[in-house]
Structure formats: C-alpha cells, structure tokens
C-alpha cells in the first residue's frame, strides 16, 4: 500500500548530498518548510545550490548555512538582506564566494514550472531591455522584445502544506502553496512537511497538488512548528 510518510525529519532529508540543487518554498512566512530547513541547518551538507525566492528566509531558519559557507550558489528573486548592514550572504556575494542567478519573480516561477513540465526553455517579455537580460538571447515576437529563459530543476524540494493523504495529495491553507507545487514538480525528490495527515484520501476535486509529485511526507510535530 502506498504510504509516503517518513517517521523522522532525518529520514525526510535522507540522501540530500553535497553539491545538490535544493528548492525551498515559502513566501512571507507562509508555506515555509521550517522543520526541514532547520534539519538542513543541523546537517553537514555543503556546496549547495539553493533555489529560493527570498534568501532571507533561508538565513532566518538556517543561519549555519551561510556562517559555515555551505551555499555555493543561489537562484532567487530577492537577495537583499533586511537590515541596513550587509547580511552574511551579502558579504559572501561581495567577496565573490557566492554566485547568484537573480530572476524576476515571474520568470523564477515559470523557469521552475518549465523544469517540472519538461519545457527546457521559453521566451518571455519580462526583463527584456533591462540589466537582467544581459547575456540572454533576445528575439522579437509580435513586435515585442523577449528573452530566452531556461528551466530550473532540483535534486530535492522542500515545501509545506496544511494536509496530506498517504498518496501525497496535498491541500494548502491561505497563501501556503506559492512555489511549493512547481518546486515539487521540478525536483527528483519532493519532501513536504504538513500540519496534519488525513487517514482518508483527500477528495479528488479538492486537491491542490497531486501526490504524483510528492515523494516523502513529514507530519510536523505538534510542538515543532
């Protein structure tokens, strides 16, 4: 019988390796897989390429990642630290120790979706004619300049949802979903932490993400998050 639950957070992140590309969901605190990020922080995994919309949430929950120089590159749409003084990651970037692929949030999302949907590249008008188009192929469609953006894929994805069934079918609350569905689609191993587990399969027409995209379910501890 299919049952994608794991029994511990260590099992949830098992197999994540040095040099992996890891995608992490969350926006403004909603849908942030806090338990998984904390477990990553505690691990010794290094040389990571992390795909995350806003880098500050990574530092918030996994300060050790940057303190110990375990991130080698980032794909994001918001790299700026919150405080006036530069953050750890801003300093590492200035020192040339951290490579950044800054994408407009819509191109960031679409590149991840493309990764999950088997589309290797697409043209978009977003960022055409700006600094972020530098080095990218430009082509005109219907009189409009567009640039070629390429897909992003991950080895692992971390996301958070409200509820899962044993198939990995998910329901999200509020704005929890954000980058979670596309990151799960785009990654080889998608790990979701959920607030609750449904013993009955979720209703077929009320599922926000099909369990086909989910590999492991961590039912968050009551006190954990």
């Amino acid at each position, binding site marked *: 019988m299919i049952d994608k639950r794991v029994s511990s957070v260590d099992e949830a992140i098992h197999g994540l390796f040095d040099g992996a590309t890891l995608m992490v969901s969350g*926006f*403004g*605190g*909603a*849908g942030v897989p806090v338990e998984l990020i904390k477990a990553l922080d505690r691990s010794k995994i290094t040389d990571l390429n992390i795909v995350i*919309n806003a*880098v500050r949430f990574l530092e918030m929950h996994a300060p050790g990642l940057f303190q110990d120089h375990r991130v080698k590159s980032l794909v994001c*749409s*918001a*790299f*700026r*630290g919150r405080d006036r*003084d*530069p953050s750890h*990651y*801003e*300093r590492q*970037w*200035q020192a040339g120790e951290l490579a*950044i692929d*800054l*994408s*407009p*949030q*819509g*191109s960031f*999302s*679409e590149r*991840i*979706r493309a990764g999950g949907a088997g589309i290797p590249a697409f043209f*978009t*008008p*977003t*960022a*055409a*004619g*700006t*600094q*972020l188009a530098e080095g990218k192929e430009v082509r005109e469609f219907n009189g409009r300049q567009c640039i070629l953006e390429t897909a992003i894929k991950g080895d692992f994805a971390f996301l958070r949802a*409200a509820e899962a069934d044993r198939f990995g079918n998910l329901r*999200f*609350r*509020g*704005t*929890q*979903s*954000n*980058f*979670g*569905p*596309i990151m799960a689609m785009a990654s080889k191993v998608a790990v979701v932490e959920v607030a609750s587990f449904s013993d009955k399969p979720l209703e077929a027409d009320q599922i*926000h993400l099909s369990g086909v995209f989910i590999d492991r379910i961590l039912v968050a501890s009551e006190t954990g998050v």
Partner: protein
Amino acid sequence: MVKPLSRNQMAWRAAQDLEEGMVVNLGMGMPVLAASYAPEGREIIFQSENGIVGAGPEANEDERDPDLVDASSRFVTLAAGASLIESAASFAMIRGGHIDVTMLGGFEVASNGDLANWDMQVPNKGQLVGGAMDLAVGAGEVRVIMQHQTKDGSPRLLNVCRLPLTAPACVTRIYTDLAVVDVKENGFLVQEMLHGMTEEELQARSEASLSFSANLKPLATPDI
C-alpha cells in the same frame, strides 16, 4: 510654498482612478495603502502575486493568520469572491495580461514611460527584483506612485532613467506629491497639479520637459 500631498493623500488620489470590476495589483508601500482609499461601493479585485486573487483589508491583530499574507508580507484578509493560487499561475495571470492595472512605487520614470523601480544600487546590499518586472510588462496599465523628487531634491521625472530599468516604455500615469502626470506619445502631460503651484515651479522640479493639459485641474484630496 504649497503643501505637498502626504503619503496617504497620494495613495488616496491614485485610488480614485480604480474602477468597478478592475483587477488591480498593488506594489509595496504607497500602492498597498491605496486599497483602503478605493471609493466605497466599487468592487475592485486586488491581486497579490504570491497567490491571492481578491485580497481584502489588512487583518486586525486578532484575526491574523500566518498562512495568509500578501505580496508585501502583510497579514491580510480575503474579500468576497477571492480565490487562492500558486506562484506560476499567479504570474501567468500577470504576464498574460489579466491584470488591468498595476500601481507600483518608483524611483524614476522617463518621458517615454521607462520605469526604474527595483534597484537602488545601495552599496554592500544585494539586489531584490521581486515581481516588479513581470507586473510592469504584463499589466494593462502601469501607474506609478512616487515623490516628485528624491530626498535630496533630484528630479524623478527624467529624460532617460539613470537607475537600472524595470521595463521600457510601460508607465501610463504617475501620481506624485505635487501632480498627476500622464505619459503620452510625446512625453509627460500634467493633468492635475497642486493648487497654488505654477507650471514653472513644477517644471523646475522635473528634468524632462512637461506639457500641461488644456484641461489642467487642481490636485485636490481630503485631509488625511
């Protein structure tokens, strides 16, 4: 010396142009303030790019839900008719032209409608682009709310933007603390200006040359 509009007044003025049934995305700062000044009785659908279609007012302290935030990371509520979507769907909505109007903050606007609003180039700080470029490219209309000048008195209505562009030739209207300015084929056209201000005074605070509407109106707002 005339008194420039407050941030609330700028947001109020911008909100008056939002029409019944419009789908509107509001950027951080003054733009999100505008939502609360939309004329009563008008049903406007506020889209928030992190996944809300139909955001309601900011949540009171006792109704805050950590799972329900808007693109400015504020705790919000849902309006009647709201729906919730994931990020790729949200930006498909934006890039695909399904947002009637976006109101964004701005650093600079050029007379051809070029917008610079994402990178202040602060030393020692990283970049943050967020959804601004997608909104500037995808929305039916791009309206900017910004102070007419920088804190040190430099103009923001320019011949050519100096800061990195968000998108070329996208802005249709600018709400400043001094005026309401449209971007037309041949440059800036002032539609409204603070009472007591002269055309020369407004021009002196702008780099690009301004035209003035034959039907120029006073920029009047309530005392908020």
